[in-house]
């Protein structure tokens, strides 16, 4: 069971690792070696620092260790011997210490999130190379066996080389859609940690927020980057109230708003204002605004559903995906009642048949309409479709409730 010190160590490592991968990748022109070298350095760091304490300059320590590992890896691949020797000489002279700037991670992040890679590959690469998570940690976050995740990473790195995916910032014309891909990966990472009441779940979400902030500050004229940061910060303001003492999920309507983090909410408001000032709305800004509506409502009863519905209407123009339409229907139910909402949801039945929240939502609405048989069936279907223990727990307790 990892200790609090371990967690602190791991966090320090993660904050430094991405920069070193980016620098090595640039220097070597080889992402695979750069990334492997840093992974190995991370493992050595965690072991050594646990024993000897964190060095005064953890970034420098990691950088040096990673460079040594990179030289070893280069030697192992026969063709790279001369480059390895050149590097060895540099290292002996104390040369090769590169200037550190915040931007260097960005080209690598955009490369890891390239549309030519599958979404799963983008997630795995970003969490490994940019965030510095280990393969077992990533595997556990996405509930796949370690060997599967390792294979996924190998295949992804192979595609980068064989297809010539560059680690470079996209052209101005392509920046908006490519940034959307990056922000999506960060959002998915946040989500993976969101429903885990464990420490590792919280860490993953924190890492996602850290990455979102890195991107926003590196691209301050990109409103969607600020929008994502605002969204994640609003969501994180509710971390203390999302689970009860037994680790059970608490729905938004039942959460103790007194436990919401007011400082985080103010910060999120600030990020959203920064985004809005740039006058280019987008889906992450709109989702943030919706989260903001909930964050500023003093109680569930005070929630401004009309404002939320209006925002969902706007959001649908940017993102007409079925999940957004589902959320739109939920907002609608608060204004126009369950029957109207159910009609809208039933149009999504085909596309969202495998999505547990569709059925859970139908169950809520059917209960309100007095169809307890239908609600039971829908809750059972929802239960069968989710593997998240906290959600399963919630659905089971609904099934066990006596019908009014």
């Amino acid at each position, binding site marked *: 069971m990892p200790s609090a010190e371990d967690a602190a160590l791991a966090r320090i490592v993660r904050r430094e690792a991405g920069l070193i991968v980016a620098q090595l990748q640039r220097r070597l022109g080889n992402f695979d070696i750069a990334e492997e070298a840093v992974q190995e350095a991370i493992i050595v760091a965690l072991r050594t620092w646990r024993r000897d304490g964190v060095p005064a300059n953890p970034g420098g320590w990691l950088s040096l260790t990673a460079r040594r590992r990179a030289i070893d890896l280069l030697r192992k691949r026969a063709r790279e011997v001369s480059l390895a020797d050149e590097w060895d000489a540099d290292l002996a002279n104390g040369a090769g210490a590169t200037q550190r700037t915040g931007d260097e991670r960005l080209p690598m992040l955009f490369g890891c999130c*390239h549309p030519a890679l599958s979404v799963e590959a983008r997630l795995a690469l970003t969490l490994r190379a940019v965030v510095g998570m280990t393969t077992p940690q990533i595997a556990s976050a996405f509930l796949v066996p370690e060997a599967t995740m390792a294979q996924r990473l190998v295949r992804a790195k192979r595609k980068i080389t*064989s*297809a*010539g*995916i*560059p680690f470079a910032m996209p*052209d101005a014309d392509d920046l908006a859609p490519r940034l959307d891909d990056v922000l999506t990966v960060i959002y998915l990472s946040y989500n993976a940690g969101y429903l885990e009441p464990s420490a590792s779940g919280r860490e993953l979400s924190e890492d996602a927020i850290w990455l979102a902030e890195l991107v926003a500050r590196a691209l301050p004229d990109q409103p969607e980057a600020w929008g994502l940061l605002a969204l994640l910060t609003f969501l994180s303001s509710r971390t203390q109230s999302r689970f009860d003492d037994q680790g059970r999920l608490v729905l938004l309507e039942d959460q103790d708003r007194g436990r919401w983090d007011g400082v985080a909410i103010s910060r999120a408001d600030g990020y959203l204002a920064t985004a809005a000032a740039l006058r280019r709305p987008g889906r992450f800004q709109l989702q943030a605004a919706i989260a903001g509506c909930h964050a500023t409502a003093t109680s569930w009863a005070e929630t401004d559903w009309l404002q939320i519905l209006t925002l969902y209407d706007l959001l649908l123009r940017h993102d007409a995906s079925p999940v957004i339409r589902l959320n739109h229907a939920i907002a609608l139910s608060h204004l126009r009642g369950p029957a109207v909402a159910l009609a809208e949801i039933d149009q999504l039945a085909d596309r969202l048949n495998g999505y547990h929240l569709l059925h859970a939502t139908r169950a809520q609405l059917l209960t309100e309409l007095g169809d307890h048989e239908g609600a039971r069936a829908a809750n059972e279907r929802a239960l069968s479709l989710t593997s998240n223990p906290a959600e399963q727990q919630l659905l089971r307790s609904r099934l066990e409730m006596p019908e009014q």
Partner: protein
Amino acid sequence: MKYVLMYTNRPDLDAAVPEERQAEVYQAIFGWFEKHGAVMVDGGAELQGPETATSVKSGTNGGAPVVVDGPFSEAKENVGGFSIIDVPNLDAAIAIVKEWPSLGLPGVAVEIRPIVDHSGDM
């Protein structure tokens, strides 16, 4: 890096496109090849329609190859032509391919596939 571009289309959807529009796109394609002439290692070829194709397929149980009527795949998508380009990286290839005039029509896809580099082979 060398990539093959495979220009594909959906003949069943092409049928709905008015002749004038098709002619317009065809003209634009000439312009596209001119514009990107510098990266064309081989302009490749425009293929005659799928109805002109013949395929030779592996025989069953390792038996003799079989000659059949039609393209190699039963899929709706048809390969209409190919070219070979040489560009620094995938983003450069994508930027060029995004301008392919047929992409304005429904059901069109251009695949970008890197070529195996045999230069290191003995």
